[in-house]
């Protein structure tokens, strides 16, 4: 708790109008869009980067927790001040500073409302791709903290794919700037989706895209969820990536029709599909989509021909949450994600779970990327009902984890799913998350007790964790070598094929060669993902996959895949890596990310490994996104040069390898 005397100190800095401490003021910052409540001790209404710096530095100096907050529409308890302290409201930092169509970027402050940015860009003929459902009110800063998605992210990717640089006030009160053009480990990628636990974004540069020339909106009814999802897979397999691919189940459609009739098909499943691009191409794709829909048993197929009709087709989808929100005061919106092909199974599991807990669930999916939103209406004032619904929510998440998916596609972990993180990740991985957090925020003041499970929660979850896939034989050998080195304190030189860099081993160094890691672990054809060992040669892999009809989004490079990633030979690779298995200096291994295309569970550590030059860990497996159509990828890029570590890289290093035993030359002996 913060003492009154020290608050007076803060009041001198901000004045009574920008430092709120009244009981009602604090109560108004005790909640977000989720269920938890906890009051802060003070609220700072920041107007500038300087304000943010002063507030964060004051908290760091006084050991006071601080939670940054935008519009507070978070659905996972992300901006609840669980430990009291200061709420740092960024809602008044609302300037759009620059729209540069030539450089295809816009620069804005964190309090800018997503829709306001969209409106400003529209006037310049552009758009910003992430479009969370709350876009009318949610802020850019919140979107970055949560790595927000939205219907359009199937085609365009989530927030992390659209932020090109940020200015951040780090937990110690220092300002930093991270960009995709930075050399070395991708700090930007780690900060996006960190839920405000690693710093406070004060300014962001985002990618902007030209508005598409044509948009086709299509509404289709299917006789079953299964047939609708098979159709979705067929569309993706045909090389068509719709800008929107939303599915609604019968219960959702029925509740919409009961509230505000939108004339949706009376079918078991309804798909809302939207294609965009240049004019002729959209019509061609629409023709293919129509054929595929009919082949998969479409009962009703409608295509909008003008803007007004497009709006009408969207009405039912837009009204879906509204309709459920009227049934009872509260709505639990789950956000699990599974490999696309597992959606029908996930759907059945959700139905069974809901029945077992007497919960009425209406289902919405971002079907293209396997993200499902079961909506359960309830009244939080009924404790018994709330327990049942929460229980159902937890079981739904467990089902997603068991099906090879993840806890959250776009809403974040916050405090709500913190405990569930222990089912998804191994103790070693969670320990790594903890070390990363502590490296940047040793006092644990920045949005405390979020994302990472508490030790007690971790213990409770132990039996619930599905068994991990064992290391391959080749990886086991490396792990054994690593453990031995750890035991003796020997330094380790991680080497791939030596194509991009040939570091000289110092006397006594253990050499760890990854070239024996050659196998394809899993090719998931319906999900369009590949898990492969890091010793394969990208060029060879690319050719193998092409034979099977898949496009690997990498240059036809030589050397090892692991080396390609560790040296960040092509910075664009960051948008295609979904997960990694990494051998740590201790000999333990961690599984990071996953095999779903949309995943905001935990820190995006794979990004920090890209460009780490083997100084953080040994990449032994990589999970990559595949495509049905070729992408524009550069030819083999020139050999990259090692980076010069900065203080933030050193903090990362301290979380991975504090004794500097891995590729010691990178950080200097």
């Amino acid at each position, binding site marked *: 708790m913060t003492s009154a005397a020290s608050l007076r100190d803060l009041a001198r800095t901000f004045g009574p109008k920008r430092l709120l401490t009244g009981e009602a003021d604090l109560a108004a910052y005790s909640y977000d*869009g989720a269920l938890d409540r906890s009051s802060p001790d003070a609220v700072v209404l920041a107007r500038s980067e300087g304000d943010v710096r002063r507030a964060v530095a004051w908290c760091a100096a006084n050991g006071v927790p601080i939670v940054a907050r935008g519009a507070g529409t978070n659905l996972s308890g992300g901006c609840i001040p669980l430990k009291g302290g200061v709420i740092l409201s960024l*809602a008044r930092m609302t300037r759009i500073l620059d729209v540069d169509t030539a450089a295809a970027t816009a620069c804005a402050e964190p309090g800018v*409302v997503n829709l306001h940015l969209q409106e400003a860009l529209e006037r310049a003929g552009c758009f910003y791709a992430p479009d969370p459902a709350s876009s*009318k*009110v949610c802020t850019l800063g919140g979107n970055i903290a949560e790595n927000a998605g939205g219907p359009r992210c199937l085609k365009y990717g989530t927030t992390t794919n659209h932020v090109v640089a940020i200015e951040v006030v780090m937990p110690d009160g220092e300002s930093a700037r991270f960009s995709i053009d930075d050399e070395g480990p991708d700090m930007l990628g780690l900060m996006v989706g960190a839920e405000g636990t690693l710093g406070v974004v004060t300014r962001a540069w985002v990618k902007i895209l030209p508005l598409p020339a044509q948009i086709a909106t299509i509404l289709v009814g299917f006789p079953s969820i299964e047939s609708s999802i098979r159709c979705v897979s067929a569309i993706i397999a045909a090389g068509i990536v719709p800008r929107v691919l939303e599915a609604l189940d019968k219960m959702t459609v029925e509740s919409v029709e009961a509230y505000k009739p939108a004339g949706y098909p009376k079918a078991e499943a309804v798909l809302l599909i939207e294609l965009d691009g240049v004019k002729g191409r959209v019509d061609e794709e629409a023709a293919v989509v129509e054929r595929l829909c009919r082949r998969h048993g479409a009962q009703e197929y409608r295509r909008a021909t003008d803007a007004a009709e497009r709006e009408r087709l969207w009405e039912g989808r837009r009204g879906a949450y509204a309709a459920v*929100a009227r049934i009872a*005061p509260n709505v639990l919106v789950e956000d699990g994600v599974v490999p696309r092909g597992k959606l029908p199974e996930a759907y059945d599991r959700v139905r069974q779970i809901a029945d077992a807990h007497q919960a009425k669930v209406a289902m919405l999916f971002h079907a293209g990327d396997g993200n499902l939103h079961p909506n359960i209406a309830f009244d939080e*004032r009924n404790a018994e009902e709330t327990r049942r619904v929460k229980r159902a929510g937890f079981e739904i998440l467990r089902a997603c984890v068991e099906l090879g998916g993840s806890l959250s596609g776009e809403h974040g972990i916050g405090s709500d799913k913190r405990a569930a993180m222990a089912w998804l990740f191994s103790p070693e991985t969670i320990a790594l998350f903890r070390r990363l957090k502590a490296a940047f925020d040793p006092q644990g003041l920045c949005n405390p007790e979020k994302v990472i499970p508490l030790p007690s929660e971790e213990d409770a979850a132990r039996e619930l964790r599905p068994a991990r896939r064992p290391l391959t034989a080749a990886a086991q050998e490396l792990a054994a070598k690593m453990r031995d080195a750890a035991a003796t304190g020997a330094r380790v030189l991680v080497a791939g094929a030596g194509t991009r860099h040939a570091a000289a081993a110092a006397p006594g160094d253990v050499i760890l060669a990854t070239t024996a890691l050659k196998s394809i672990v899993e090719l998931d054809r319906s999900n369009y993902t590949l898990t492969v060992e890091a010793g394969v040669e990208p060029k060879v892999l690319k050719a193998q996959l092409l034979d099977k009809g898949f496009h690997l989004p990498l240059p036809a490079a030589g050397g090892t895949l692991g080396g390609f990633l560790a040296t960040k030979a092509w910075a664009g690779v960051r948008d295609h890596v979904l997960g990694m298995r990494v051998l740590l200096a201790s000999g333990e291994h961690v599984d990071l990310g996953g095999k779903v295309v949309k995943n905001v569970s935990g820190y995006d550590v794979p990004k920090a490994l890209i460009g780490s030059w083997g100084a953080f860990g040994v990449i032994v497996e990589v999970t990559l996104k595949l495509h049905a159509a070729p992408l524009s990828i550069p030819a083999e890029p020139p050999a990259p040069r090692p980076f010069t570590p900065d203080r933030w890289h050193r903090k990362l290093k301290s979380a991975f390898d504090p004794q500097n035993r891995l590729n010691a030359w990178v950080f200097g002996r």
Partner: protein
Amino acid sequence: MTETLGKLRTDLGDRSAYDAASQCNRCGYCEQACPTYVVTGDEGKSARGRNQLVRLMLENKLKDPKSVQDALATCLLCGACTTVCYAHVPTADLVLEGRRALRASEPVPVLMKVLGELVERRPRLLAVLLKGANILKRLGVSRLASRTHVLRLLGMAGLEEAERHVEEAPLSFLGERLRRDPELAPSADARWAYFAPCGPNYLYPRVGEATTYVLKKTAGPGTFLDNPCCGLLFYNYGDLEAARRMARRNIENYEERADGLPVWGDCSSCVAHLKTYPQMFLDDAGWRARAEAFAKNVKDAAEMSSSAVPPPAPRAPTSDPRGCTYTYHDSCRARNGEGIVAQPRLLMKTMCGDGYRELPEAGWCCGGAGAFAFTQPELSDEILKRKIANIAKTQAQVVATSSTSCLIQIARGLKKYYSECRVVHVSELLADELRANRYGTPTRP
């Protein structure tokens, strides 16, 4: 002592105030609709914040319930939040309930007591006093009063502020004028009735004259209800029992003089209140039925393009004969309280042809909001500036609206920030059209 309603009429049926407040699931989708949140960025001044604070009050979870005073006092009661809310949580009603609960422990302020007494029991004395004040204002005494802060010294700072906002000072009130009009005397032939809200009555008789002129020309013979105040003053700032008494008097008056006829009024705040009379009688079956019968016949002058008053024939798009540009500002109570959006626009477009421009953020409150402009002058001014900036974007010379509070506030804002434009009631434009016999004339030279 102030009691609370306890039970509210919501979009989901009659609900206890607690159930209505709990229906807010904190999604926050109302935030950008709430002018005071947009201006301050303070959650406590957002609709969601107010719902939560009222809920905490009802749950007795606040150590110091008075700490919500500021959050509740700064609510415009514009209802824009309810319009965008999926479950249509009635935030304005909840805020009023919260204010009533806070007032329960406080003595009634002197100003409210005096004003209440005058409005409810001594309307003629009120008229005499107001006229006296208007004469003084015309003589320039009010400037003197404002310089010497006489009103503030008398403990009436709010009145001093109010006085400064009002530009017009009529010497004869609408009621007197209409009472003298033989065409509006009670008659069996009457096909409509006119309800004179306090605004048009005491401040803008020209508005009421315009409305009755239009009704006479387009809807046949009608009658003037010679009504007392609608009671909104008591409902919002005083005690509910007084508000109920005013409602009963108005219903009785209507039943006596014009039972079954449509009742037209031309201040949307007042009209919207008349339409919600039943909410005050939810547990009183007899009065509830009478209030419902009355309320369903109430019409806002802003909806005069409805079937009761046929819309004028569209003019060829040769723009306005006066070469003016027009725009329309929604009174919050018309838009969010009564759901009137399309009708006045249809009317404006048919009257003004391509001289009509849609006002950006037309549904954003002007900051007038009854006494808000006097009680929260700084916030009100911030909100007003945005409104005037939007009016300036349309380059309109005339902005039409439908409630007294908007007329006062926008006139003040235009004078201060954009004097090329003036504000009128939509009835006045329509009356002009009729007087100039332009109504329905297809083209103009």
